[in-house]
């Protein structure tokens, strides 16, 4: 029998220990490359793991968006997280549960069929055995690749999936610090950037002295071609510099956008290539035909919060905390931009604001 096709995430990240770890405090840590942007995915993935491992939800923790310990699942987009990451976690958990039961049966010198799992403990014909996931975990080789051959549970047996459970990230968000913006270690430097007026614009001149006067405080100006950042130990100084900077910057190659360009009529007048999406309509004439033309202006996928990231460069290693939607791609991009080897960079996800209606955000790769 040939192995079933694995979800893309498992093909890219086959090792079981990329996905699951038994913790000394009798919890199980599930790792996902998908991140929370208000859609509840971290809670959903926890639910999937809890059911497949026969654990209550509070014994499952979810590590999300971590290049050191978690799988590379590219970006959190296209409403694919539960299908792809959840599907992967389900297969991994089914396989690890089977391995754990196999070990327990060996230890107890019994048949696997005599064993059941309740709250992570292995019962033999309903009786406690003293064995559980955590006692047999040291004997399970999680460096092995997932095979995908262990069937997941039938949907009818789910106890946690399909039930509405409270989001695990919400209590922090209604009571205090919860977002990447809220983590401020000692000796933090604040930075703000100067925005290009349009893509492709080039910086002809920058009156740094005028910006320093407006900033009124300790300020470092970082320039790299058309990129400018204002750095200060005092956030309001960096803010004041960035607020004043556009007045003191001269740009070439600025592309001006005509307000007419946001009208549907303008758009329809542009060269286009027509392509059909979906099946051709039926050739049978409809009983009654309604035709309507609908247009809407462009809508910004603007986030409620400013984009924000935290970076620490220590002993040649860069750690970045970001609310971006893909930590592994971010690490790769940072390596390319900074000329560092990928292994010298760790990217970790922390929460940020979303636009909710669509995970496609203007800040997704910033």
């Amino acid at each position, binding site marked *: 029998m040939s192995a079933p096709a694995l979800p893309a995430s498992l093909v890219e990240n086959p090792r079981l220990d990329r996905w699951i770890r038994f913790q000394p405090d009798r919890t199980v840590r599930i790792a996902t490359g998908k991140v929370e942007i208000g859609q509840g995915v971290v809670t959903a993935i926890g639910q999937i793991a809890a059911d497949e491992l026969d654990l209550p939800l509070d014994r499952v923790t979810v590590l999300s968006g971590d290049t050191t310990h978690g799988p590379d699942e590219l970006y959190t987009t296209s409403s694919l997280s539960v299908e792809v990451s959840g599907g992967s976690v389900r297969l991994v958990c089914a396989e690890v549960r089977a391995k754990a039961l196999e070990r327990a049966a060996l230890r107890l010198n019994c048949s696997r069929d005599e064993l059941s799992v309740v709250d992570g403990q292995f019962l033999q014909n309903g009786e406690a055995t003293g064995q559980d996931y955590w006692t047999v975990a040291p004997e399970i080789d999680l460096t092995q690749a997932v095979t995908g051959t262990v069937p997941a549970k039938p949907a009818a047996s789910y106890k946690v999936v399909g039930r509405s459970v*409270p989001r695990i990230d919400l209590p922090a968000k*209604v*009571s205090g610090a*919860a977002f990447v913006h809220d983590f401020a270690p000692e000796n933090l430097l604040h930075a703000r950037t100067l925005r290009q007026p349009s893509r492709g614009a080039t910086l002809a001149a920058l009156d740094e002295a005028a910006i320093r006067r407006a900033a009124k405080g300790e300020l470092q100006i970082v320039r790299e071609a058309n990129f400018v950042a204002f750095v200060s130990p005092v956030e*309001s100084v960096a803010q004041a510099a960035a607020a004043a900077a556009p007045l003191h910057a001269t740009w070439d190659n600025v592309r001006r956008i005509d307000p007419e360009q946001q009208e549907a009529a303008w758009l329809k007048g542009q060269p286009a290539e027509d392509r059909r999406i979906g099946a051709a309509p039926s050739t049978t004439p409809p009983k009654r035909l309604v035709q309507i033309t609908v247009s809407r202006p462009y809508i910004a996928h*603007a986030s409620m*919060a400013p984009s924000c990231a935290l970076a620490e460069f220590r002993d040649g290693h860069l750690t970045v905390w970001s609310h971006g939607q893909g930590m592994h791609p971010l690490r790769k991009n940072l390596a390319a931009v900074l000329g560092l080897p990928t292994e010298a960079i760790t990217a970790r996800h922390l929460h940020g604001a*979303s636009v909710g209606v669509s995970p496609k955000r203007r800040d997704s790769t910033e």
Partner: protein
Amino acid sequence: MDIAFTVNGEARQVGAPETASLLEVLRNHLGLMGTRYGCGLEQCGCCMVLVDGQPAYACTREVGTVAGRTVTTVEGLGTADKPHPLQQAFLDEQAGQCGYCLSGILMSAKALLDRNPDPSRGEVVEALDKHLCRCGTHQRILRAVERAAATLRDGRPA
């Protein structure tokens, strides 16, 4: 210069320019990170706090103007372990998606329920009109405020 005011029931003194924003002082001087920076222009309501019980945008409010006054932030409502009935109602209704707007909304809701324990749906909508939520959690937020109002009324001596 030193500015003295009461934050969440505690007397505090901060060395900051009078023109510094209340938001910056709360976050960077006092470490109260629950009040959030959204737009910085009084357009989104993420930074709403209470000054002497009235909703105020902390992003544009100069800290010098709160000298001697009482400021309440979301940390002054309750904690994740011991939530205020409003916070609990938001959790009960799961009234949050990304959650960035919630601390500001909670403060406006607090001011509303303090002055009007039994608001109509229209009065809740009006009190929260200055707040943006881009995720689309509006209906759950309205239900949460109504649920909190009911809880607070039940707990009150007749």
